[in-house]
Structures are given as structure tokens and as C-alpha cells.
């Protein structure tokens, strides 16, 4: 078997401790702010929403160097730096920091946990006003556009009239697109990564397997579970399925092949687990510690429902968009295949929007943007640098 590139072996920073990895940002903290009044697209009104967010770098006096990072399904506000409690680096520490693709020496970086998630922003596990019990399944349906509305409220709170850039992968990419369309006056540069304008049947199907695993776990109890009896088995299965779709056959072959766990395989035990089995179980076990099962249901619903052009023809909707785009896909991504990014690019260009498109060759699959990835990082860094330079020339 060919040697596995180090970055493939290390994987992402979400669910595992990467040996010797130290964030150059040191300890970073997540703050929470209560913002008033939000009406969701389903018609539900929150009197107030809590928003957990992190900021890195320094806001320029003109308040024009802000970059909003939109997290993917299981990401949260802790985007980079070391968490003071867990000691873990942020989920995008490989690409956010001093001198990195998203350079915190130049830009003021903001990242907030999404509405409906479980990263400190209001979600199904939050206490309901009044009785103090969690919302559970009484939480209103959430859309990607609702997530963006919350982020806009946060920008208002931080006093940022217009973002320099908004960037995100997967579900984060959907937020990028929704922000560009719903709030065209709030952003100059959009970088949607490994994303799409709406899910295909296959993408919905994988999410439905995950949801089904959760709701058929007896401990789910209609979404009304206690800390003691959470549907951890269902959620672990959902994560295992999800994780497979985030990788490529190449990555799995080179990472695991048909290797078995050493301690079991040594005495020729036929039942010895394949490495990939224990890896997935490990992924599942770690995930249930940090993720709320109901949030998984709500967020996967949100991305399945997402349709950038649900309100009219693409040409009409894109007419008001002013931002310039860098669209990135990965050749090995079979969950959000490059063809979906190309379709997005086609619609952008046909609407007269400046769009650069690159299909990066990383063979890691959908998660290629979450791992250490020099080719990807270089494109993002140069694009942001060049756009930043032209912004300074003609503000």
C-alpha cells in the first residue's frame, strides 16, 4: 500500500486529538450574546436568541476587514485556537490563524454556532423560556436562511455594516449562498466550498438514514430525553454513516485498507475488527459526547430543505447579488460532487457575476476542506489577498 500523505492520516480536527498539534493562536474563547427578536421562515417568533460566537484578529477602524466563517453541520463557533476547557483546537485551525489561508493578522474573523445546533446558539437543547425545560421537538423548524438571519443580527450587534468576505464548506457553503442572495449589500466576496444550491435525492437519502437511526432509538423518546438516557446509539450510527460519506474510497483504502486492530489480530482471531470498524465506532462514540441528537434532526432537515432558488428563477434572484465569488469543489467529493458546484458557477456567470471556479484534486473526499490541505489553502489565501488588495485600491 502506498504511503498515506500525513495530512490524510491526521484527518480533521473535529473528533480526534491530533498528536503534537498546537494552535498558533493560543487559547481562544467563545462568547455568548442574547439578541432580541427573530421570526423564523416557518413563522415562529423567538423573543430572543442566544448566539455563541468567536472573534479573532482585529477589526479595522473602517470596520471593513471582517470575514464571517459559516460552520458545517457539526462545526461550532470554536473555529480556531485552543479551547480553554477541553484543550482542543478549533475545527478549522488548519486554515484560520496568523499567516494561514484566512489570515487573522489581516482580517477580523467571526464564527458563530448556527441556530438549531448545539454549539451554544439557541437550539432544541436550549431551555424554553418559562418552564426551563429543553425545547426538544417543540423547537420550530429551522432553515439555512434562518441561520443566516441570526448571523446578520450578530453582525449588527458587532457593528459590521458590510463583510469583506463570507466563507464556508458544505452546510456552511449554503449559508454563504443564502447570505449573498438575501443580504447582497452585506458582503463583497463569497467563498462557497463543496456545496450546492439544493440537495439531490442521494444527499437527502443519506441524511434520512441518519435521522431514522436516531428516531428509532428507544431512548430518543419522541425527542424528550434526559441527560441520562440520550439516543446515543442512534446518533452514533448517524455519525458513522455520515462520516463514510465525507471520505473517499481512496482515503479509506489508504487509511485502513483491510487492516485489523493489532491487539485482536495478533493471535489470528478471525473476529478481529477491521480498523475501519473501530475507527467508525470511535467517531460515533466521540460525536455523541458533543452533539445533541435533536439538533442532528433539525440541521439535516434544514440542509435537505435548502433551495437557493426556491423563490423564483435563478436569473431574477441573482440579479441583486453584488459579491464576487470563488467557488471550490473537490474532485474526490462524491457527496457534493463537482457537478453541483459547476451548476452553481454556471448560474452565477450567466447572471453576470464574477466567479472563479476551481476543482481541487485532493483525494480525501468531502472533508477535504477540513484537513490540512496546502493546495486548497493556497487558493483561498491568494484569492482573499488579491481581493483585499483591490478593495484597498477601490473601496
Amino acid at each position, binding site marked *: 500500500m502506498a504511503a498515506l500523505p500525513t495530512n490524510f492520516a491526521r484527518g480533521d480536527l473535529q473528533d480526534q486529538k491530533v498528536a503534537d498539534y498546537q494552535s498558533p493562536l493560543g487559547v481562544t474563547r467563545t462568547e455568548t450574546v442574547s439578541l432580541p427578536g427573530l421570526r423564523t421562515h416557518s413563522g415562529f417568533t423567538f423573543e430572543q436568541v442566544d448566539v455563541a460566537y468567536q472573534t479573532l484578529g482585529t477589526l479595522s477602524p473602517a470596520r471593513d476587514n471582517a470575514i464571517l466563517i459559516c460552520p458545517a453541520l457539526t462545526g461550532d463557533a470554536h473555529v480556531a485556537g485552543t479551547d480553554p476547557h477541553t484543550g482542543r483546537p478549533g475545527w478549522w485551525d488548519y486554515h484560520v490563524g496568523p499567516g494561514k489561508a484566512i489570515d487573522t493578522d489581516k482580517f477580523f474573523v467571526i464564527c458563530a454556532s448556527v441556530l438549531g445546533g448545539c454549539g451554544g446558539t439557541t437550539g432544541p437543547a436550549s431551555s424554553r423560556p418559562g418552564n426551563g425545560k429543553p425545547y426538544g421537538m417543540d423547537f420550530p423548524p429551522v432553515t439555512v436562511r434562518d441561520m443566516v438571519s441570526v448571523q446578520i443580527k450578530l453582525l449588527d450587534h458587532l457593528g459590521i455594516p458590510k463583510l469583506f468576505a463570507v466563507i464556508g464548506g458544505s452546510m456552511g457553503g449554503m449559508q454563504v449562498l443564502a447570505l449573498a442572495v438575501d443580504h447582497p449589500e452585506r458582503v463583497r466576496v463569497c467563498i462557497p466550498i463543496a456545496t450546492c444550491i439544493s440537495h439531490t435525492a442521494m444527499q437527502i437519502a443519506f441524511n434520512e438514514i441518519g435521522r431514522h437511526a436516531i428516531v428509532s432509538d428507544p431512548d430518543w423518546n419522541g425527542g424528550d430525553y434526559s441527560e441520562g438516557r440520550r439516543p446515543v446509539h442512534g446518533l452514533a450510527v448517524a455519525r458513522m454513516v455520515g462520516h463514510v460519506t465525507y471520505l473517499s474510497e481512496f482515503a479509506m483504502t489508504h487509511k485502513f485498507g483491510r487492516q485489523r486492530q493489532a491487539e485482536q489480530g495478533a493471535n489470528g482471531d478471525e473476529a478481529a475488527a477491521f480498523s475501519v470498524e473501530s475507527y467508525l465506532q470511535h467517531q460515533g462514540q466521540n460525536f455523541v459526547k458533543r452533539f445533541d441528537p435533536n439538533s442532528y434532526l433539525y440541521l439535516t432537515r434544514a440542509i435537505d430543505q435548502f433551495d437557493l432558488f426556491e423563490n423564483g428563477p435563478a436569473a431574477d434572484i441573482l440579479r441583486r447579488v453584488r459579491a464576487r465569488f470563488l467557488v471550490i469543489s473537490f*474532485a474526490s467529493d462524491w457527496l457534493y460532487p463537482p457537478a453541483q458546484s459547476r451548476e452553481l458557477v*454556471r448560474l452565477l*456567470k450567466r447572471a*453576470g457575476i464574477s466567479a*472563479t471556479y*476551481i476543482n481541487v*484534486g485532493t483525494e480525501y473526499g468531502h472533508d477535504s476542506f477540513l484537513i490540512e490541505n496546502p493546495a486548497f489553502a493556497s487558493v483561498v489565501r491568494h484569492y482573499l489577498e*488579491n481581493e483585499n488588495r*483591490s478593495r484597498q485600491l477601490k473601496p
Partner: protein
Amino acid sequence: MNPGIYETVLRWIPEKSRVLDLGAGDGSFLARLVQARQATGEGVEKDSGLVARCVERGLVVHQGDIADGLDQYGDGAFDFVLLLGTFQELVLPAEILREAFRVGRQVIVAYSNFAHLRVRLQILFQGRTPVTRSLPQPWHRTRNLHFLSILDFQQFTRDLGVRETARAYFNARGAVRFLPNLRAEEAVSLLHADTISRRSAVAEPGKTKTETYEV
């Protein structure tokens, strides 16, 4: 490619034109065009490493294979479409030219002349497939699919209903004016479509009867 070709193309393109460079490579020429002509430039390139180089230069670039068409661009989105250096590698050059004329008003094509004297002599006296400065690879390694001469190209444009409004020929010593089909190694041609975009299908090459007396 002969540097004279790039100089010629720079001369042909007026300031502030909208230019699409097909097969933009690392974007060096497009960047020059954007700089020197204040052009609004965009490149199409299939190699992701080269696309990344274009991004480094601050160019708008699209990763794609021009053989798959240019569906991402609307009709008449550009003033000029450039095909410099890949023309003889295209499987269906007529189809790509048609598509180029859909998205652009004028198309500039550069190509190698297979009827150059040295090529003719190699075939005639050595009996071998020629390897020359402008055709540097042996037959089994070359990416060229089509071996055309300047006369062939002119015939091709006539068959397509495309007007050649300017042309320039080059060999290692510079511009060639006298007997280009014999003496030039490379050619560049500025094309204007009068009828191509209204045709339902490309005329089959060779259908038009044309007499040629050039060598």
C-alpha cells in the same frame, strides 16, 4: 510559442475589451493583457494546478475542459475569445469555434503550420514523421491531433463561414510575409463570424469548391 504571436494579439485587442482566454495555462498572458489593455479578462483551464496559478495572479478563472463546451457563459458575453496554442489538440475544432463565436464576437486562433519547409523536407528525404521546433514531440508523444497547414486553416474558416480579418505568420527569425505556407512555423488569425452563429450545423469541410494556387 513564438513571442510575436503574443505581441500581435496584444495589438489586435483594443483597450477595455472583454476577453475570454481558452486554455489560459498559468495565466501569464492573460495577466499581461489585463494589465496592458485594462481588459476584463477571464480564463478557462482544465489543469487545477494551473488554475491555482491564475488565482495567484488575481485572475478570474474557470476550471473546465473547453471540449465540454462553454455553457457557463451567455451569448455575446465577450468581445474576444482566445484560442492560443491548443487549437491542433482539439478533438472537434469546428464545434469549439462555433461555441467560441456564441460567447464572443471575435475569435483569435493560433496554430502550428504543418506545411513548413522543414516539415516537408523531413517527410520527403527522411521518410519520418517530422520533429521540429514548433512540432517538438515525436509522433507517439505529441498532443497534436490535427496536422494542418495555413492553407488548410483558411479553407476551414471559409467552410465555417468565418471571415479572417487579420493574420500574422512567424518563424524563428520573426514575422513571415513572403510564402507563409512554406516558411512560417506558426500562425495567428483574427476571425469574425458573419454567418456561423446562425447556422444550424457546421458545414462539412471540403464541401466548398475553392481553387488555391499558393504553395
